[in-house]
């Protein structure tokens, strides 16, 4: 039987505002399938976002949904989760949202290891605002604010997440939707801060400026530039230049914040009782 996406969507809010060929839908569908697989009640799930194309997701999905300010989704999600540690809080963010304006929150969410899931849809561009360069725009690629090619080196979101302490990190591509679903599902099951980076496509804003305007061609480009972690081990840095490594990159058992804070409450109450 075909998956019943409509059960999880606010069909009265359709049509959505994403462009034809956009990769966000593939990620959202993977997320919905993973939620379904977890068997969570829709009432127990919150989907939180910041600003940008990806961040419009909450409006369309039938959960407790929160569309916040640019870059700040993780901060709102932190408050939600700490208030209700028993519920499931998912943050969905773009590359500009998570890694530029929200970069500091991203680092600290990783280090705190609160049991949240962050899905970053990385399309290397600011899509909604008209194709400006983002922190993941490849070196030399064109953007409306990099008309002669990007001068900045791109940020590797997954590597930063691992370095900052995220306890589950995986990277997939929108060319492989079922792999994404698996990573998101594993991220949900993981107790701690999980980051799933989805290498995505923006044919309109990124593709057109970079000779990749055909959506299928751009999908192929994304797939070809992803190197599975095992394969990457055997490759030289020169061979990996311009590529990104895919797979479950990091999976670690680590103290989870809300569980640890429950111990803080116990210690505080014992101390108060002892006085």
């Amino acid at each position, binding site marked *: 039987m075909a998956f019943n996406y409509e059960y999880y969507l606010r069909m009265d809010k359709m049509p959505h505002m994403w462009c034809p060929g956009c990769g966000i839908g593939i990620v959202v569908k993977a997320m919905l399938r993973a939620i379904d697989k977890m068997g969570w009640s829709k009432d127990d799930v919150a989907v939180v976002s910041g600003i940008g194309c990806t961040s419009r997701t909450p409006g369309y999905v039938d959960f407790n949904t*929160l569309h916040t300010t640019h870059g700040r989704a993780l901060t709102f999600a932190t408050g939600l989760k700490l208030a209700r540690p028993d519920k499931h809080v998912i943050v969905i963010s773009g590359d500009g949202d998570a890694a530029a304006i929200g970069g500091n929150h991203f680092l600290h969410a990783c280090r705190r290891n609160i049991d949240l899931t962050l899905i970053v849809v990385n399309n290397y561009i600011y899509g909604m605002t008209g194709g400006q360069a983002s922190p993941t725009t490849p070196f030399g690629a064109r953007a409306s604010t990099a008309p002669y090619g990007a001068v900045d080196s791109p940020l590797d979101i997954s590597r930063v997440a691992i370095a900052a302490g995220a306890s589950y990190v995986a990277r997939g591509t929108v060319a492989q939707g079922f792999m994404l679903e698996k990573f998101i599902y594993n991220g949900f099951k993981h107790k701690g801060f999980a980051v799933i980076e989805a290498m995505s496509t923006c044919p309109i804003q990124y593709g057109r400026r970079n000779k990749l305007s055909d959506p299928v061609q751009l999908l192929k480009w994304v797939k070809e530039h992803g190197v599975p972690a095992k394969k990457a081990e055997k490759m030289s840095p020169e061979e990996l230049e311009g590529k990104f490594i895919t797979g479950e990159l990091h999976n670690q058992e680590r103290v989870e914040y809300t569980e640890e804070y429950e111990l803080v409450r116990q210690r505080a109450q014992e101390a108060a009782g002892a006085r």
Partner: protein
Amino acid sequence: MDKKIQLWEGNHLVAEAAIRAGCRFFAGYPITPSSEVAEYMAWKLPQVGGTFIQMEDEIASMGAIIGASLAGVKSMTATSGPGFSLKQENLGFACIAEIPVVILNVMRGGPSTGLPTHPSQMDVMQARWGTHGDHWIIAIAPAYMDEIFRGTVRAFNLAEKYRVPVIILLDEILGHMHEGYEIPDDFEIIDRAKPDVPPEEYFPYDDSKGDVPPLAPFFTGYRYNVTGLNHDKSGFPTTNPELIQRDMERQRRKLYANLDDILWYDEYKLDDAEIGLVAFGSMGRSAQVAVDLAREQGIKAGLFRPITLWPFPEEKVQQLAEQVDTILVPEMNLGQLILEVERCVHGKANVEGVNKVGGLPIEPPEILEAIKARI
């Protein structure tokens, strides 16, 4: 020691009052002169089953308290000028999304890093207009320990009742001073209205039953959308001009049609006053002493002390302008509250400032001199 009276620091009293009002979530970032609030919350909140978190910055603290409030938990943060500037972004979100939160700003000298350990009253206008765009907000400026306690409880009550962020303005004097105070138990606690309709009939911005629609906590079966974009009654983004006009007017009206409930002020020896003072916070205390000093010299001075700064008690100031020829406005800045006083007085009385910056308060004798100079 069986007496309940204790020596309370102003900042600690805000924190204790918040907890008594039902606050169970605090997110903050260290900043002088407000850090004692965060320290107290870090110590006390886990004892009562609440949550304290030190966030990575002020922006994050503001986001976190909005998130926690959406889950139905009364939440607050505390800061001072530089941090208050950073809060403004998400403060605007709390305004447009109508999420109850409380923000304490213990004012210090500015702009920028300014005078971290010295008092000022320089954030009068930032409290009203700090975030961008049209928005309506409540700001409370207590002056005495009892007002700090009751004002904090009131801040939570108003936030819950009107689904609005409420700002508490202290200054470094009030935040750091210690005074004897006995915590009262005769105060009311108001919780936000919850929906009385089934989820399929619930809309978080439905104005059909009043200007303050009930707010369902997240995870309680009411699945809806909250956004910082202008939105329709379901919380879904809209660019429909009629809907936006109607929604924004409602947000204004929910406060300005309830001024009797929201406004709070004190009057001191105003009945026969021939010269009026308008001052708030610690300078309200200085001005009260100045009134007494003036009266000892035969000058009939009186004080109007707004405790709700925003919305401003416009009518009371208008009445004062009918009564006296001169209104003096002592404040620890170079003229902010005076702008609002002048607007209300509208030329019906002579309005003059008594101003001081640089970290020192305006002492009663200085206000007295200003009074005598106008007689």
